[in-house]
């Protein structure tokens, strides 16, 4: 059993320094790795990123993160990433990383993701340049996620996890106003997960949403936005059957 701890949308700033550290220091007793599903800061400044870095520095489990929209607000995502990496956090965007847990290769593929909406209710690459850019951005990030998941399969990972900030499915948005679903996620992310296969998809972003969901291909989805899970983090136990997950077996 691989124990995956995850939380998103912690929105730390200087006035919340130390808020999560006491809970994080219990991680070694209940998890093998910690996933951070974006919106780690409020405005995406390096100063706020330093608070996040201090909160997770030196933890006895690997910490793997993606950025969220808040982490881009100051338009310094590279600086935020550098600060987090200096504290030992693996920050993913269109990439995968592998951690070994008791000899089991666990792969995490990550992207921020973006919006656009869900099948039958989504935007298209059509019309004004701004609209085309909006949808292309999501498509590009979803392609990055697909490539990262494929790479983890080729790398022999027995367990693969898709980590995003925006949601791949509408299930985990229930509780949010329907009108804003296109700003909360995109089916393109779920399509990438289903095509490449994964054992779990974890996201944040939807504070008023719901924890549990599933892609149409059968991959379980968890919204770990902190206001949703109502804890410092959630822990999910993933079984290991010894064979790499494929798109077919995931579905």
């Amino acid at each position: 059993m691989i124990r995956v701890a995850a939380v998103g949308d912690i929105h730390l700033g200087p006035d919340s320094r130390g808020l999560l550290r006491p809970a994080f220091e219990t991680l070694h007793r209940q998890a093998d790795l910690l996933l951070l599903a974006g919106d780690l800061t409020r405005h995406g400044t390096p100063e706020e990123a330093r608070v996040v870095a201090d909160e997770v520095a030196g933890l006895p489990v690997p910490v793997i993160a993606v950025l969220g929209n808040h982490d881009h607000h100051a338009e310094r995502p590279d600086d935020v990433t550098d600060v987090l990496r200096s504290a030992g956090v693996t920050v993913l965007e269109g990439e995968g990383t592998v951690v070994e847990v008791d000899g089991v290769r666990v792969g995490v593929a990550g992207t921020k993701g973006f919006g656009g909406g869900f099948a039958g209710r989504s935007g298209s690459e059509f019309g004004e340049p701004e609209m085309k850019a909006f949808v292309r951005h999501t498509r590009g990030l979803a392609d990055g996620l697909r490539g990262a998941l494929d790479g983890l399969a080729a790398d022999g990972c027995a367990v693969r996890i898709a980590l995003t900030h925006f949601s791949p499915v509408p299930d985990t948005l229930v509780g949010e106003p329907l009108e804003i679903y296109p700003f909360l996620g995109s089916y393109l992310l779920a399509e990438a997960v289903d095509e490449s296969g994964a054992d779990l998809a974890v996201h944040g972003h939807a504070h008023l949403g719901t924890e549990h969901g599933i892609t149409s291909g059968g991959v379980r989805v968890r919204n770990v936005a902190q206001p949703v899970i109502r804890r410092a983090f959630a822990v999910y136990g993933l079984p290991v059957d010894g064979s790499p997950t494929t798109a077919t077996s995931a579905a």
Partner: protein
Amino acid sequence: MATQPDDGTDPDTTPAQSGQSGQSRQSRQSRHPTTNTEYLIAHLGERLAGGDLAELGMRIESRGDSVHITGTASTAHDREAILRLAAEELPGIAVRADIALADVTAPDHPEDLS
């Protein structure tokens, strides 16, 4: 979705009295001269997002003669700041707030995904 405060308090009901000075209130009203509650709610949402709080997670809705705000704030300080901004942006309108505080305790059990 409405949430109950974690600290056991009853949902707040704040008769909105402006905390702003007359000068700043006037300049705001000249930029946003509307008294239309729908637009005032939109302006509050923009102000919560654009200010120091960077708060995009509150649900702000008109309910009868009042405005209802629900969501989860990171700290008690943030919750107070949200209520203060609501009072400034919704002068003369009763604000009913049901803002929970984020729970930062560790979970007591995992979810088994077997």
